[in-house]
């Protein structure tokens, strides 16, 4: 009972909250307070779920009592739990930040309910055990994100949002077609069953073609090379709060789905995919970092860096060893904290200068030391300076890459780290360093919630770096469980047997 509740809460609780927030439309303060309370419950439940699954337990909830082969199952293992914990953390910080950052009635009016709907989609995508429901929750997440990215509805923002909308819609259509083809070829869409059948061999070529299409769609959602172009233009145009939320959550859900599906299905795939994945990861790192160097606004640079960082995560996955996989996971979690903190700090600076252009305003380190400290910690973490979380993410990744025999891609990851540092110093130099000038609206950026959210995320990045050893050893257990797919498959199938037993007279 307790276990079922823990699996249900990450999806159902935000849905209930959203329904309760809608009648309060227009009463923004009340909405924010309610969303904060609800976010606290979500955070607590994610912690409980982490504790419950830490020893390798896998909670399976068959909804509606159907056998998992044809019905809907939700599965919570240690990977899902740790992702949910970080999702809840980032979303809580976003709520703190939102009050000071959202501008005007147009942006404030529907933000809080939409934020909850986004969480429904994210939670569902993480917990679902079959690919059709993954499609459904992707759509829930997308629809909420479409509305959020267009929040406020400035002409330029809508224009830049259109490619985001269209690319994701086409991606979803292809995803659904691939799910249909997989169902036609394998007779089920449950991931555990698919893993079993794929391992058994004898599936037609259609199945592998459709699986490849699904992976391409996940790559679109993750913003990997060569299907990342929807991201760098649309994100900086969204309101800062939304930009931070997306940077922390959306591409990471794509990363999560790749981490979930590739070990389940990829192990049995006909060869040749692993070098391709390593090459894609390395190219993504390079393209992302060079693209970022060419941008001229704070959030433009930061958003292009999302692409580069996603490359690191997928590099860890592509190596397919427990060490590298755990490193990829560590990097994912680190990035959710550091990237959101950076976007938040950049947003405050943008508010004070009245523009996001680099060099439009300088010297924030003198006038706003706390904000500058928050930015500096997160930026150095992203660039991989010890003892921050980003350093350990890269350290483990390099160790894993060398151990797995991929020296070229490992070298590229180090090189990209250097350019990341250059990029972060460019922002630091342009915005925070030097004599104060051009700070046209200093009062607008001084908001306790905004500063608090930025600083606490940066502090958590520091803490993750200081506690790297215990966190990483936990993630190594997670990665081992993920690579050895049998516990996952066995847990889902055990739920099926239990169900058959219950139905028997």
């Amino acid at each position: 009972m307790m276990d079922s509740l823990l699996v249900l809460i990450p999806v159902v609780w935000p849905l209930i909250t959203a329904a309760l927030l809608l009648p309060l439309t227009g009463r923004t303060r009340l909405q924010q307070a309610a969303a904060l309370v609800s976010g606290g419950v979500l955070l607590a439940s994610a912690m409980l779920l982490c504790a419950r699954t830490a020893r390798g337990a896998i909670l399976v909830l068959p909804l509606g009592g159907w056998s998992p082969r044809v019905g809907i199952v939700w599965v919570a293992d240690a990977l899902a739990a740790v992702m949910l914990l970080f999702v809840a953390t980032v979303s809580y910080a976003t709520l703190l930040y939102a009050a000071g950052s959202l501008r005007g009635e147009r942006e404030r009016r529907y933000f809080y309910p939409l934020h909850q709907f986004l969480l429904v989609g994210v939670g569902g995508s993480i917990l679902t055990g079959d690919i059709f429901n993954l499609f459904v929750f992707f759509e829930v997440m997308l629809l909420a994100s479409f509305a959020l990215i267009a929040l406020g509805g400035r002409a330029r923002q809508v224009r830049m949002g259109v490619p985001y909308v269209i690319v994701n819609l086409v991606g979803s259509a292809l995803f659904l077609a691939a799910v249909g083809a997989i169902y036609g070829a394998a007779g089920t869409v449950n991931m555990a069953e698919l893993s079993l059948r794929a391992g058994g061999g004898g599936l037609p070529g259609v199945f592998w073609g459709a699986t490849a299409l699904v992976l391409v769609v996940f790559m679109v959602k993750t913003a990997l090379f060569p299907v990342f172009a929807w991201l760098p233009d649309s994100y900086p145009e969204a309101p800062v709060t939304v930009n931070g939320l997306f940077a922390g959550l959306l591409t990471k859900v794509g990363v999560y789905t790749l981490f979930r599906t590739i070990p389940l299905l990829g192990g049995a795939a006909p060869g040749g995919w692993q070098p391709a994945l390593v090459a894609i990861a390395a190219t993504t790192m390079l393209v992302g970092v060079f693209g970022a160097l060419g941008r001229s606004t704070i959030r433009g640079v930061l958003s292009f860096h999302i692409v580069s960082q996603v490359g690191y995560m997928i590099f860890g996955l592509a190596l397919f060893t427990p060490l590298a996989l755990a490193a990829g996971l560590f990097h994912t979690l680190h990035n959710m904290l550091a990237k959101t903190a950076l976007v938040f700090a950049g947003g405050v600076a943008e508010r004070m200068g009245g523009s996001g252009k680099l060099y439009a305003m300088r010297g924030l380190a003198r006038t706003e030391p706390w904000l500058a400290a928050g930015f500096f910690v997160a930026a150095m973490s992203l660039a991989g300076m010890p003892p921050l979380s980003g350093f350990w993410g890269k350290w483990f990744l390099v160790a894993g890459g060398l151990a797995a025999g991929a020296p070229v891609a490992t070298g590229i990851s180090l090189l990209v780290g250097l350019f990341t540092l250059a990029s972060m110093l460019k922002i630091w130099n342009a915005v925070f360093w030097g004599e104060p000038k051009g700070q046209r609206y200093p009062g607008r950026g001084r908001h306790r919630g905004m500063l608090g959210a930025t600083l606490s995320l940066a502090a958590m990045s520091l803490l993750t770096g200081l506690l790297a050893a215990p966190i990483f050893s936990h993630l190594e257990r997670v990665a081992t469980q993920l690579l050895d797919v049998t516990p996952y498959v066995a847990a889902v199938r055990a739920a099926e047997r239990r169900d058959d037993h219950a139905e028997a007279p």
Partner: protein
Amino acid sequence: MIGLAAVLSGVLFACGLYLLLSRNLQRMAIGFLLLSNGVNLFVLTSAGLPAGAAPPLVGEGEGASRAPFADPLAQAFILTAIVIGLGMAAFLLALSTRHHDASGRDDVEGDDET
């Protein structure tokens, strides 16, 4: 039957993608509708369309028909997808209205800054 459905689904895909490549938001909305219908037909076809299959309505007891019937799960997928497609189409139309209100035009111009 399967051949016909496959060709029709391909035509819907092609027309939908062609329209989605346009800069005009209303054309994009129509393109999306065509594409999503093409996908629905594709899902129905890939789950198998046995000739002369009955609808998946199985009676109770011994008298139930033993004739082959269409796969109900694929139809459930499509039903869900239709609802989602409707939501997305509604959003696209709302977006094109919003874009028209904000910029006074119906097409999305190219990017001036890179």
